[in-house]
């Protein structure tokens, strides 16, 4: 699952991931994404942080309530949020932050690492 309020970004990543054989649910609205999220329904969630209505962290917290073990990557323009998030979720690793811009071909590597 991929959630980003920028539709151009989700579209390019969705196509990129689908080319690599993944099944992708893409949402540009966090609330809509949350309503489609169920336990064990997705192998990986990629979240933008800066989004209207509900930011990436809030969405992450809600998703964790549904699926404790869900694997999450934050897709962000900066690392600034990492320090803040580390305080709330100490288990979060810096490697879980994907810094924009990202080449489509790198998507596969990330998945493998995860």
């Amino acid at each position, binding site marked *: 699952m991929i959630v980003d*309020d*920028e539709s151009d970004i989700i579209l*390019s990543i969705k196509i990129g991931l689908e080319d690599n054989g993944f099944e992708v649910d893409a949402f540009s609205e966090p609330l809509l994404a949350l309503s489609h999220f169920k336990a064990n329904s997705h192998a990986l969630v990629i979240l933008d942080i800066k*989004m209207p209505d509900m930011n990436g962290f809030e969405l992450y917290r809600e998703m964790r309530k549904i699926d404790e073990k869900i694997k999450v990557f934050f897709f962000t323009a900066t690392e600034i949020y990492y320090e803040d998030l580390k305080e709330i979720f100490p288990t979060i690793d810096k490697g879980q932050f994907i810094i924009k811009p990202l080449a489509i071909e790198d998507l596969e590597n990330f998945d493998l690492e995860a």
Partner: protein
Amino acid sequence: MLGYFSKVFEKSIQTSTTLYATLKLMYKHLDIKLVNLPLFKNTAIPLSKTNFTMLIAIAAVAILLSVFSYQYYTFTSAKISDIASHEVKTNAQIQVHDLSQILSNKFESISALLQTLADSPAIHNNEYNRASIVINTRQQYSNQLTDFYMWLDKNGKMNWLSNINQSAYQKYKGTDLSYRPYFSVPRDTHAAYYSSLIESNDKIPRLYISYPVINMTGKGSPGIFTGVVVASIRSITLGNVLQHQLIPQFNSTVGLLDRKGTVLYSSTPSFIGNDVFGKDIQSMLSSLLPSESIDSLNNLLRSSLQGSTGSGDISAQGKTSTISYEPVSINGKYFLTLYISAPHNLASDVGLLINQQKNFSTIIVIVIAAVAFGIAFLVFLWNKRLKVTVDKRTAELKTANEQLKIHDKMQKEFINIASHEIKTPTQALLGYSELLQRHPEKIEEISQAIFRNANRLQRLTNDILDVTRIESQTLKLRKEQFDLADLISSIVEDFKNDIQKKGSNIKLLYEPKDHLILEADKGRLTQVISNLLSNAIKFSKKNGGKISIATTMQNSNDNDKKVFVSIKDDGTGIDPAIMPRLFTKFATKSEAGGTGLGLFISKSIIEAHGGRIWAENNNSDAAEAGGATFYFMLPLLPTTITKITSPTTHNFV
């Protein structure tokens, strides 16, 4: 001593309590009083409780000290007075003793002279001429005290009187003095005689010392009485001689009483010859002295007349005198009593000095206390002022620090925003250009996306460039005359098309009323209006949102014409946190997206045209989202304005 200190302490405590009450009262009015002082005209600074307590403590200590020093001086003054009195007393005793010794010696020497006369052959043999010379010579030896010497024959008739001329001698020669005790007593007793006060034929009071002249005829025979030799001493001379012996500084006076209490000598001449216990003297004393003083004086006199030595103090009219007395004896025989009265003048002089010193030191202590109090008061006030200043500076620093923090936060925010705004289209461009190679069939869709994102990057670049221009004041306007109503209409049309394309149903309402001719940079105004509209769309409800644009004119007939443009939406409204810096750089919430540069640029453009831009929430209660309205005002050109449509007035400014 302990009792004395406890008294002093008690007094000091009482005084301090009174002072505390006074100061407390003073303190109540301190604020007002201070404000009236020119020094503290604009700052009413009350003293703190601690400072006030310290002032009280200083005052209390000062009062304790001054009371203590006053008491101490009173105590020492009394002590010194005592010492001085004691000194006077001792001096009087020493003097009376010395004088009585002197007097004794003098009398004894006179007595010795008389004895030699009584034994002289000239007198024994009745050799008148030789005897007269011998008597005269002997008298010369003691003329300091004696008046004259006499030689009486066995019948008491005068044989010779010293120191008189021949004619006087002829007058007194043979005078019968046999009735006088100074003749009869030695005749009867064959012994020396010391008289009491005798008023002579010439009315001068005198004392007499006489010796019998005895012719020794053989061993064991009692001898034949042939006459007496007599020495006469004027009481006044005696007194004067004694008075001269006294040390003048003590202002003492001498008195002499004989064994019976008759006054032999007194500084009051009328007393001489009178009985000291007699009516005259006693009535005179009662007019001078209080009765208890007379009693003690009389007691003193009585004991002195018993031949004893002693002294006593007599007070009258606030002055005390010491009277010392000692008997004067001649050859062991009590003859008379000598008195020396010494007033305590010296003691009172010393007391006066000490009193002065006492008052002076009390004043000094009070002055020092007042100065200490004053200085402490000033120091406390300055301290307080300093504290106020420091507090003020601290508050300023705190504000500055907070501003720095805000600035820092804004900077961080900008980095976030800038990085998001740059990286998002870059990400899209990167992604699509890769996909273009993999999916050539999607070329149209992808190239549109690339175009959109390239455009977005360009807009951002332009915005940043604009900010740079604004800040370096190099923003140039290409002014031309045009109708603002037309411009708004065309922009609104574009936006409507855009909304339609995106499949949104936000409504844009604009009805041009008047021709709004102005001279402005068309491109820049387009930028402002587009920015305000896209903001309105961004914050509007995606479904059923409504945005209305209206224009209104002011001073339509004047030269100073203005147009007010309002863009009203019914979206989320302006966040109260953003409101105060709405038109500054980077004023955006990261969740909302955008660079936060648009309104800053818009404001700069409008102001560069001589206009004004502002915004408000439609609902004063920010919790109720009633949307927001943005306004801008621009000056119009003074041309005739033609109504385009039937006028419907909208007043929302």
